């Protein structure tokens, strides 16, 4: 009566330094199950710099190259080039960066790699703020959310950057969203990315219980609610053109309040603000549906 068909191979070990209920840790576990043993992971400054463990330890059973904040994509492209020169086209190179290193600090390197169509998989595990340095706002922090640099009295007034639109605009062969409550979907997308030549980009929503001020046991629930409320729709874009929606569009969405009310970072919101967020989500959903229907 299994609910999922996860590969049994474990390439992430116990003893890592992720917090209780870490969505980023679970995302890595799934990504490596899909990518397989023959993978090199490139990690810029982000939570995973810490989670993997300090020198001379690593909780990952694949090689890891720790690199500077802004360099995930270009360092991965370098590893790829080195492998190619050795005639090794089998090894997968996986850049693994947080939202800070993707949306903000590493964006130019990522844009450059995408423009050159470097043959790498780039996964951004997005926990929506600079979490390991103390929950500072990032370009991925949602509209009106609390962080330590956007306190409740002056929450973030800018919308979350649409990283998928940015990457799709590079017309890379494959871009997709995924999240930890849907492991089969997640793993299928990593495996699909592995089978495609060029720059592949995955935007993964990775709930962070301490940063979102939510109980750790709700990590999966929050990820699921993000999809069910359409805060974070699951979709794929091939060659910057073909949009594929992964959850049936006729499915009725839950109100966004179901998602917001479980998180302390949104506890200051007024009913009016929640309605405003709902409207933004509805508009974005309609836009996505339009893109899906236009490309089919």
């Amino acid at each position: 009566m299994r609910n999922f068909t996860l590969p049994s191979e474990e390439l992430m070990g116990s003893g890592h330094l992720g917090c209780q209920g870490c969505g980023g840790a679970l995302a890595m576990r799934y990504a490596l199950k899909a990518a397989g043993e023959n993978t090199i992971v490139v990690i810029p400054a982000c939570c995973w710099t810490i989670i993997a463990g300090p020198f001379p330890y690593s909780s990952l059973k694949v090689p890891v190259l720790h690199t500077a904040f802004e360099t995930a994509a270009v360092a991965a492209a370098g590893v790829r080039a080195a492998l190619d020169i050795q005639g090794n086209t089998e090894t997968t190179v996986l850049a693994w960066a947080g939202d800070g290193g993707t949306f903000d600090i590493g964006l130019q390197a990522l844009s450059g790699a995408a423009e050159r169509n470097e043959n790498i998989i780039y996964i951004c595990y997005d926990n929506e703020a600079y979490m390991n340095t103390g929950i500072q706002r990032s370009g991925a922090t949602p509209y009106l959310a609390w962080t330590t640099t956007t306190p409740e009295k002056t929450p973030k007034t800018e919308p979350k950057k649409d990283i998928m639109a940015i990457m799709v605009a590079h017309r890379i062969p494959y871009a997709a969203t995924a999240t930890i409550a849907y492991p089969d979907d997640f793993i299928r997308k990593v495996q699909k990315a592995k089978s495609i030549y060029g720059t592949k980009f995955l935007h993964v929503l990775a709930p962070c219980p301490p940063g979102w001020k939510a109980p750790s046991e709700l990590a999966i629930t929050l990820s699921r609610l993000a999809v069910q409320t359409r805060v974070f729709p699951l979709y794929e874009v091939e060659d910057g053109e073909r949009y594929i929606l992964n959850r049936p569009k006729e499915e009725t969405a839950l109100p966004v309040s179901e998602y917001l009310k479980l998180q302390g970072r949104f506890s200051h919101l007024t009913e009016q603000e929640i309605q405003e967020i709902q409207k933004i989500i509805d508009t974005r959903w309609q836009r996505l549906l339009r893109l899906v229907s236009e490309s089919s």
Partner: protein
Amino acid sequence: MRKPIVFTSEHEMPPMAVSLADMGHNRTGGWRYLRPIYSEKLAPCKSACPVGNDIPRILSLVSEGHYEDAWRLFRETSPLPGVCGRVCYHPCESFCNRKNFDEALSIASIERFVADACFGLEDRISERPRRSEKIAIVGSGPAGLTCAYFLAKDGYAVTVFEAASQPGGMLRLGIPSYRLPREVLDREIELIARWGVEFRTNIRVGQEIDIEKLWEQHDAVFIATGAHRGRALNIPGEEFALQGLEFLKAVNLSPNPSPTRRGEGSQGVRLGKKVLVIGGGNTAMDCARTALRLGAQPIVVYRRTREEMPAITEEIEEAEHEGVQFEFLAAPVAIHKLNDKLEVQCIRMKLGEPDKSGRRRPVPIPGSDFILRADSVLKAVGEEPDLSFISESLETSEGIVMDRSHELLERAGVFIGGDAQTGPSTVAQAMRSGKETAQAIMRFLRGERTPKPKKLEEALRVNFAYFAHMPRVPTPQLPVSERIANFAETKRALSPEQARAEATRCFSCGVCNNCDNCWVFCPDVAITRMNGTYEVNYDFCKGCGVCVEECPRSVISLVEEEL
């Protein structure tokens, strides 16, 4: 590597920052202040089942097509799955967690399917100690049969005394064959007899045999004589009305009840065309539906409204469906005989204040008398136990106490249960009583004390995210046109496909069915899949609680870590 690496000099260090070991030395279990533990819970259906059938496991077996295993699991807790699948009012379904999601599981129809699918099978009679103690059971209804089954399975010599010509008690005498075909009942009694239970029929305690003699000759006696004495109307002309239960017994014991032109048939009951049934309980419904099948036109006369009827709703609906007429808010005040016909003088009622039972009390409206004409009148206003065979001396000197606890009875070695103890109740409640009494008798004979009842935690929390809506499979029914002229069973069995589909709807509340969610969602890779089970590695589990939250069926509990 489970120890931290310590470099004592620069030369021991690698030339560049490269990892030499995994993080296994870092026992993150120390972060934990809440501990997840696997502890299966009691499914609400199983908790509600009077005989404690292991419903989630049975449904899981059915969903996989293992019907024989399912049947054997039923028989561990109940000797009458074929009977219960048909006549039990399935309290299990009322408590099914799935009713909060879409619709409750159709548990009774699956039980019936399993019993039908395994009709030819027999219990595996296990090697068991032959015990010297002899036990007499008075009455072979659901309480007596169940008690006999469990005692015989434990090696005791059991004799069941039955006043009627065949065993079964109310199952045979009270329940019409369109609800419970006789071959089903016969077969399940036969399987009980295979365990060595002796049935002695046509022996009425108090007439053919004396209760005190039984007590002398046996090590324990169980009185399970049921509630067969019909209550009186206490109105003038009562003698013209027939007890509904007596009518049912006559029809149910006749080999071939069939409709006759004027209701004069092999069953030896002269009914006529127009039949009034007084009362609103299950006996009244059985009387009306039986009369209908004998060619009569029954009218149920009840002093309150449909809402207050004590009969099970399903029975009322079936009666209405088959064309039984109802005269609500009417009570008989006298019966007159004119020539061959009866005139029932009734008074119109209205509902007043609620009484003890919470139902609104019927209040007569003065001067509202009216006449209902009929060929016969059946009274079905309740039954009560007839315990006149218990002599005063036994009752007083040895302390027969009508008490659920069995405590005082155990001292005497005389036990009472089923409807004889409680008054009319359901088949399943009588079976529970029979089963509990079997256990009480065993304890009595072995000099053991009554154990404190252990209350298991119920599995009430279901994570609906892991289930898809699926409508309940309706129980197939015989069309009305094909049922009112005969005693054919009105409910049909599910097909194997329907039964399996319905069984897959089970949430398996509180019972792990290896869905893997705990293993899949552990961010710390601290759960290991074993052969069919899971194990938490407490060296690394940080106690985040994700596995507890994502377990669809509350098998995992989170407890505070002891310091």
